[in-house]
């Protein structure tokens, strides 16, 4: 039923023997012809069918190994033709052999295609062409490795040194060859040549760095030029991947390894000389993140060093002037560094941070002073711009960004509040501007920081309303203005009862009227008068002319006594006005001794006031302007002591406040945590208060002791480092 047809491979190949040797002889001589350049005499058909039949006869493996041998032989012969003594010709010989081998291999692999597809695929061996490439690598590339590599690197190094006649085409061809050859899982280029090239590059740049370390600026310029040359060269004959690696290696050596002296010595010099082009180069060179952060660190050192050089000009008389001058200089320095960064092509978040951090470090080395000076600086600015409607936005930004850097913000707040209150009460600044400044601070610090300051504004505004209403129902014999202040918002101590003084009758009535008016509107509130904050303006005709004199209320009360008296002793004045003694003495000195405001004649004229001293109006008073302002003097007798105590007092105040804050923060934290270790508690408190000031460990420990004593919290019995909340 079944017929098995005996088939045999057909084609011109059949008929000849089934044995291996005769078939191989055909192929062997064909390979010879191909290498002799006589491919066009060969019949593809015959060769293909010879291979085809051999594969079908299962002679594939024998055929494959014979092919291997034959190709190997051809390659060894070719290897011996690469002998040129001239190094340049050696490379071109090498390339010539490569091209020829590729052509021949292509032809051989054309007629062995059936072997490729059937034998090689099934047995997972390289195709004939790839086999040929492998053999080329082993027979020619490896033995010549040292020479070829050496010649290539020589050419590359020459090119690096600027030799114009570099045959980049040839280099490219050799690299293409190396990328075509496989080696292991990668190309020969990646596996063999690239590591070599990188090693050599390292050597080249180490040398280069060594030769050029005399001058920092020169070094920067030289390496920049060299690296530019390098990247240009690489573009010409290297692939992107390798090129990037090479550049990285070069940069590492010339910058990270050898250029620390550049930033240490060169950077300050560049900054002094304001050599922006070189700075720009420097920043370009230090583009990788590690190098860059090092550069920024050095910049930061320079900034701090420079800032430390700013001196307080103690030659100036007033503290205010010292503060303003110092702060202005600091701000200018900051601006100038911003400019340095911009001109060096390095503007951006990075450099902004560097500047900020440097200034922050600097400012907080003497935190309280910085805070105070900045507050004074703002004060002087706001006073001087009282009339200006439009505040300088730039100024505002700069100032607030300085403010941000302060760590002891509570110290700043204290001074600022004091001065703001003065400005508001004395109407020395533009309300709109003040509000703008506050709103900026609010943006930065949150509402808690500015709530009291805003309370002050509110009082002032409300008071203006009272005045208008009051004037509707009562008639005042003269201009009269009352500010009703809510004590907690204002930095004055009104706790000690202000003694009532005797007012002239007109004033007394006005005062009573206002009190009635206010109580009617707000029953249950009590008003207390803060005379020492007020001022009065009095017109008086002296013998040399008429003057309008603005003076503190106490001084005015004294002065007005002389409406009905020609001459009074200090004792009598005290009796008539009931002004507290130290205020009386101070104001008597103000209007009788202070050279520019000698409204009264004092007898005897000296700098102390005794109860028996006598006073009368100094009709000979004269002043260059019609309006005269009387500023209360500080009693001279103990100024230095007094000043010290004042400073001490403010420090004490600050400390007291801080203690309160720390206490509150600890209790708040423990209330929610129930229990916490000292360490974590400290961290939390520090974080909570970081907006206001830096909590020190002593401050914290004291606070804990205090709270334990007062039984707000307790220490754990077993673990004393653990604190518990006591409900």
């Amino acid at each position: 039923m079944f017929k098995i047809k005996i088939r045999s491979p057909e084609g011109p190949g059949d008929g000849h023997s089934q044995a291996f040797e005769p078939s191989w002889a055909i192929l062997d001589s064909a390979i010879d012809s191909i290498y002799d350049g006589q491919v066009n005499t060969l019949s593809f058909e015959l060769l293909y069918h010879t291979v085809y039949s051999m594969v079908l006869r299962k002679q594939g493996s024998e055929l494959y190994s014979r092919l291997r041998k034959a190709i190997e032989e051809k390659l060894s012969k070719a290897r011996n033709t690469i002998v040129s003594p001239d190094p340049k010709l050696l490379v071109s010989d090498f390339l010539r052999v490569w091209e020829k081998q590729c052509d021949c291999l292509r032809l051989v692999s054309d007629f062995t295609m059936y072997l490729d597809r059937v034998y090689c695929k099934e047995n997972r061996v390289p195709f004939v062409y790839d086999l040929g490439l492998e053999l080329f690598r082993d027979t020619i590339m490896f033995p010549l490795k040292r020479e070829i590599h050496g010649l290539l690197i020589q050419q590359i190094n020459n090119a690096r040194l600027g030799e114009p006649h570099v045959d980049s085409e040839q280099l490219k061809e050799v690299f293409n060859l190396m990328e075509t050859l496989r080696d292991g899982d990668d190309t020969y280029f990646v596996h063999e040549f690239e590591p070599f090239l990188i090693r050599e590059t390292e050597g080249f740049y180490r040398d280069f760095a060594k030769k050029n370390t005399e001058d920092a600026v020169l070094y920067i310029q030289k390496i920049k030029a060299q690296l530019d040359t390098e990247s240009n060269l690489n573009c010409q004959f290297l692939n992107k991947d390798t090129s990037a690696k090479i550049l990285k290696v070069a940069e590492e050596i010339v910058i990270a390894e050898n250029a620390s002296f550049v930033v240490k010595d060169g950077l300050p010099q560049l900054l002094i000389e304001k050599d922006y082009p070189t700075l720009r180069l420097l920043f370009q060179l230090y583009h990788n993140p590690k190098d860059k952060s090092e550069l920024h660190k050095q910049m930061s050192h320079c900034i701090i060093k420079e800032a430390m050089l700013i001196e307080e000009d103690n030659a100036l008389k007033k503290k205010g002037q010292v503060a303003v001058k110092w702060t202005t200089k600091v701000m200018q320095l900051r601006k100038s560094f911003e400019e340095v960064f911009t001109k060096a092509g390095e503007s951006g978040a990075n450099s902004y941070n560097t500047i900020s951090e440097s200034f922050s470090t600097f400012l907080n080395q003497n935190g309280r002073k910085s805070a105070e000076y900045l507050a004074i600086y703002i004060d002087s600015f706001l006073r001087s711009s009282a009339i200006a409607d439009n505040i300088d936005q730039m100024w505002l930004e700069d100032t607030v960004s300085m403010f941000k850097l302060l760590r002891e913000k509570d110290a700043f707040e204290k001074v600022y509040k004091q001065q703001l209150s003065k400005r508001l009460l004395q109407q020395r600044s533009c309300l709109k501007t003040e509000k703008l400044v506050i709103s900026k601070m609010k943006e930065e610090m949150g509402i808690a920081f500015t709530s009291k300051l805003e309370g002050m504004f509110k009082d002032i505004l409300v008071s203006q309303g009272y005045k208008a209403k009051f004037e509707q129902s009562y008639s005042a014999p003269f201009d009269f203005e009352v500010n009703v202040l809510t004590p907690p918002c204002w930095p004055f101590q009104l706790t000690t009862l202000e003694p009532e003084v005797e007012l002239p009758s007109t004033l007394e009535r006005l005062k009573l009227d206002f009190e009635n008016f206010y109580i009617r509107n707000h029953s249950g509130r009590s008003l207390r008068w803060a005379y020492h904050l007020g001022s009065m303006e009095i017109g008086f005709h002296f013998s040399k002319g008429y003057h309008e004199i603005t003076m503190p209320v106490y001084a005015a009360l004294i002065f007005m006594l002389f409406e009905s008296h020609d001459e009074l002793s200090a004792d009598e004045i005290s009796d008539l006005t009931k002004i507290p003694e130290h205020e009386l003495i101070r104001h008597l000195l103000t209007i009788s001794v202070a050279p520019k405001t000698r409204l009264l004649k004092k007898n005897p004229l000296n700098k102390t006031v005794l109860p028996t001293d006598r006073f009368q109006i100094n009709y000979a008073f004269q002043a260059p302007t019609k309006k005269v302002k009387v500023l209360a003097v500080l009693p001279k007798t103990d100024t230095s002591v007094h000043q010290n105590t004042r400073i001490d007092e403010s420090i004490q105040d600050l400390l007291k406040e801080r203690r309160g804050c720390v206490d509150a923060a600890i209790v708040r934290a423990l209330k929610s945590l129930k229990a916490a270790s000292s360490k974590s508690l400290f961290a939390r408190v520090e974080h909570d208060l970081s907006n206001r000031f830096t909590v020190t460990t002593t401050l914290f420990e004291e606070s804990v002791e205090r709270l334990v004593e007062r039984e707000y919290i307790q220490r754990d019995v077993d673990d004393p480092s653990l604190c518990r909340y006591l409900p």
Partner: protein
Amino acid sequence: MGIDSDNFKELCYWCRIGSVENVDRLVSTGVNLNLNDEFDNSPLFLASLCGNEGVVKLLLKRGAVCDRDRFEGARCIYGALTDSIRNILLAFDISKAVDSRQPFAAHLSSLLTDPSIKSHDVVFQFSGAEEIKLHKFLLAARSSYFEEKFQGSWADKHLIKMPDWIPYESLRIISRFMYLVPVLHELGPEEIGIAKQFCKKLKLLDLLDYIEKVRHIMDPSEKSRLATESQFRFSERARQQLRAFVGKIIEKKMCLPLGDISLFEALETLKSSACVPDVFLSVREKQRPGFRWFYPCHRSILIRSEYFKIMFSSNFKEASSYSETPEGTVDRSKSFPIVSFPCSDPAVAELILAYLYYDNTDIHWKLALDVLVAADAVFADRLKTMAAVAIMQSTEFLDHRSIFEVLYVAWETRMERLEHYAAEVIARDFKFYCGDPRFEEAVLRSSQRIQNRQETDTIELIDDIRYQLLKKHNIDTDDFEDITWDELEMKPTRTESSPYEEDIAMLENLLNKMGLIA
């Protein structure tokens, strides 16, 4: 059109089943892919609904239309079983360029747009110095006008200067049409006007028909549908024309003794025949030793097989015997080489030619094995698959030929599909084959194949048969993964020997007898 509608039904069946090979085979017979069956389902819809991704891809490549703007297309997309199929359909949406070309058509196009060898033998020059290089045989096959011209006044010319009044653009469009480059979608009104003038003269009725119709259609999606359908018709027409042309080649074949003096003269006559060949294909004549058949053929078609492609693009004698005219065409005055087909049956050779010229895959089972071997030798992979499918589909094959023969050829030509088929056939009638001494030999050969490779200790043929036995007796292979063999034997239903176990026992006995462990 009874055969066509039968073919279409069969196509629909394979689309549902998911057999890429059978769909390919049927599509190659020229069935219109864009018809609907009695239930209004298109082949593409069926394949898409049944989740046969391979079939969907093939149908789309062969010109099945998936137009989102029309009901059928939208239905295919919504009905798609998997997202992956849906994405394929969307990517092939008609609004993008549709490749409605079959492999032979794609090859013809590449001859014009991206030729891998220089085989042009005529160049048309225009007054504006533009020129187009073409193939005489193809023009002659596609248009009777050119056929006459090349037999008449243009017979020995390779350079044809066009009169001034004929615009370059006209021949550019016409040649693209002739080479089945999908040109319709890019034709603007101006080009259509130019093309129309020449359609009549060149008797390109299909193109003329399209031009007449498209004038009345405004809707772009309708227009594009018409273009796709027309492109499909063009390639069908081209297929018929090439079929007729192959008929002529076969008609002209000559039987001559090799090495005879008369051979040269005979080939010269063949060369100047209407087939305009540039290579002679020779096949041995079995009956008369020393005699050979010669077919007038064309390199540009033969290179569809990888073997001929390498032959004609490398630098060996065959390729270097051609030379070029100054105008860059093939110099027809030189003699052309003779190449041979690796088969000794003219019928097989003619079948391969039909495949190369117009994708014919209608392979008679009697020739299938020889076609398979020959196709393997010339690297025509798709033809190999088709020959294997022809064997597997044939109901008569096994009545005349042995399954072991199939198995050996399958090994030789690395047709895994056919190996499995052989195992299936043996398993199906296991009692019968098990006693056959040839089976023993086959097992032995299979085991040697493995030993040569030294990969595993199994015998592939035995593994395949075991698997097919499982399938035959409807035993789910997963059963064995869950239960150990012990458990299986303990089961009461299995204690009495099932037919499956009988078969397996027979197989084990045989292996024991042969001393093989597998």
